């Protein structure tokens, strides 16, 4: 197998941002009148009781299904490249495993960081675990997926480094602005007469 180079291989490391790897990302597209059949078949193959509703993700034995479009599901698997096939009368499958880079934002900074870029209320009670949304970020269409430990940003590979750079810069500024008032406050109290 040839060397696999991440699109984020040469980015600067930043606490709270990381690259999450996945073995497979497969898109399933159903013909307009066959969506129910497709999701039923996929849910069974993935060991999932019910396919995800719009804007939701559901996890099963071989990966997670994300509803990212009225006619489309994404299957994301961290363990295996194997994925179920579907018959052309129902829909089509497409391998996008290399087309997306997953940038993980740690839970602690999800809201303060991504609020600078995204007009979605990402507070946990509004955008809960396994909620999914498609939104522009740095002028690029990305998918967001709330996980237990933060948010995964599924970004087009060619834009990933650019998105990482603006997030990293904002994350550093965030730490700086969060840290400074406390230091300044202590220093100020020490100077009081």
């Amino acid at each position, binding site marked *: 197998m040839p*060397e696999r180079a991440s699109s984020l291989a040469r980015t600067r490391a930043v606490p709270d941002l990381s690259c999450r790897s996945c073995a497979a990302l497969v898109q399933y*597209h159903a*013909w307009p009148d066959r969506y129910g059949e497709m999701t039923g078949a996929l849910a069974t193959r993935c060991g999932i009781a019910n396919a995800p509703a719009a804007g939701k993700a559901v996890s099963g034995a071989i990966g997670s299904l994300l509803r990212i479009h009225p*006619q489309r599901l994404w299957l994301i698997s961290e363990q295996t490249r194997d994925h179920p096939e579907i018959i*052309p009368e129902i829909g*089509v499958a497409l391998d996008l*495993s*290399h087309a*997306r880079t997953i940038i993980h934002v740690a839970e602690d900074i999800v809201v303060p960081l991504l609020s600078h870029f995204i007009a979605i209320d990402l507070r946990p009670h509004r955008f809960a675990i396994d909620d999914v949304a498609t939104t522009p970020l740095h*002028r690029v269409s990305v998918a967001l997926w709330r996980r237990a430990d933060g948010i995964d940003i599924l970004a087009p590979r060619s834009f990933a480094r650019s998105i990482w750079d603006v997030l990293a810069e904002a994350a550093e500024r965030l730490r700086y602005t969060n840290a400074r008032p406390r230091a300044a406050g202590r220093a100020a109290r020490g100077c009081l007469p």
Partner: protein
Amino acid sequence: MRQACAEGYDAPELLKRYTTLGMATDQGRTSAVNALALIADARGRQLAEIGTTTFRPPFTPVSIGALAGAERDQHLLPTRRSPMHDALLEQGARMLETGLWLRPWFYPQGDEDVDQAYLREMHRVREVVGICDVSTLGKIAVQGPDAGELLDRVYVNAFKSLAVGKARYGVMLRDDGIVMDDGTSWRIAEHEYFMTTTTANAGKVMAWLEELLETRWPGLRAAVTSVTDQWAGVSVAGPQARALLQSALTNVDLSNEAFPFMGVREGRFQNEPCRIARISFSGELAYEVYVPADHGAALWRVLLAGATTRGGGAYGLEALGALRVEKGHVGGPELDGRATLEDLGLGRMASTKKPFIGSVLRLRPDLQRKDRAQLVGLVPVVRGETFKGGSILCETGDETGHGLGWITSVTESPSLGHWLGLGLVRGGLDAWLGRELVASDPIRGRVTRVKVVAPHFLDPEGTRLHA
């Protein structure tokens, strides 16, 4: 104006909206007072009694430069990077912004500037072998039982009949019959095509296909998905392209018999699947090979090492463009949103057996005129002379006004030993083949005598690409 007043639209704001007078390029700056005078006349009032429309800024002329602002950094725009980006930089590539993409412009050796480097790179491709990162080309997966039908409707030529394992060059038109984009589409499987578009128009074509499927033909069982980011692509071109590629790939027979021109095959790169098409932008024996994007850098390094061993190397965007000019292929400068199929010499591609987008309106009389600006080749009459892209083509002795056409693309040709160019001139080859024109460059104060020739400068029989 008088008719509008007679119909009751005799107040400035009403008349402006009814007639649209004052909404064009002058924004009322010159037309408004004249219009108000006409209203006053029609109503038998004094001009001062009529009033004006609401004036909005800018109140005085503003230069376009002031509106555009200074060229500075990225203007908060994202940057797109090819999967080979770091490998290209390691090699010393000078990058060029093309849209949002960073693409390798040329690979200087020593103190070479772009003009020296691209000629050396062209020479390598013509004589040995060159490799070029083509990952930025738009790539769209077209899938489903009606995928061929969709392509038949958007391309001027037929794709439903294309055999699995074959590629075909296609051109698509806008609704109004003007050329929109071109590229090759490969039939990967019975229900799957791999469409490529120009880098510049990738987003536009993708949005266009989605719009067509969602609004005009929702009943088609076809899905389109951008896979530009899924695949890394390398063009391998030159007399030793076959040998170089064969050394890097397995499970594929690249011989002329097993893999003819416009063929598509699947092979293996270090045991991972890859897609290969035998297509040529340069006119040389050439292939495009695509691997999943994360393997792009590995493929690049292997091919570069092999090319270097053979005396070849990488070539950049400047050489890529120059090679296609030598071959006479149309590109972005010719597909300028005004040209028709006939203007570009591609009229015979249009199918007469099926309708397609633009097939009706392309036949409007004005688009079928014989005196439209049409594609020609140009060479300097005095072979040592040069000319610039954008120059105006005029009749000798009449270098004024808009002339008869313009030059779209130029290059120095190391193969032919002189400059050459493509242009669009009124009447095209039928009117001007073998005759002289003047390339006028009024900004630089230069005038060059040029001869009109066929646009296929190099190997018009296609011997090289069929080698």
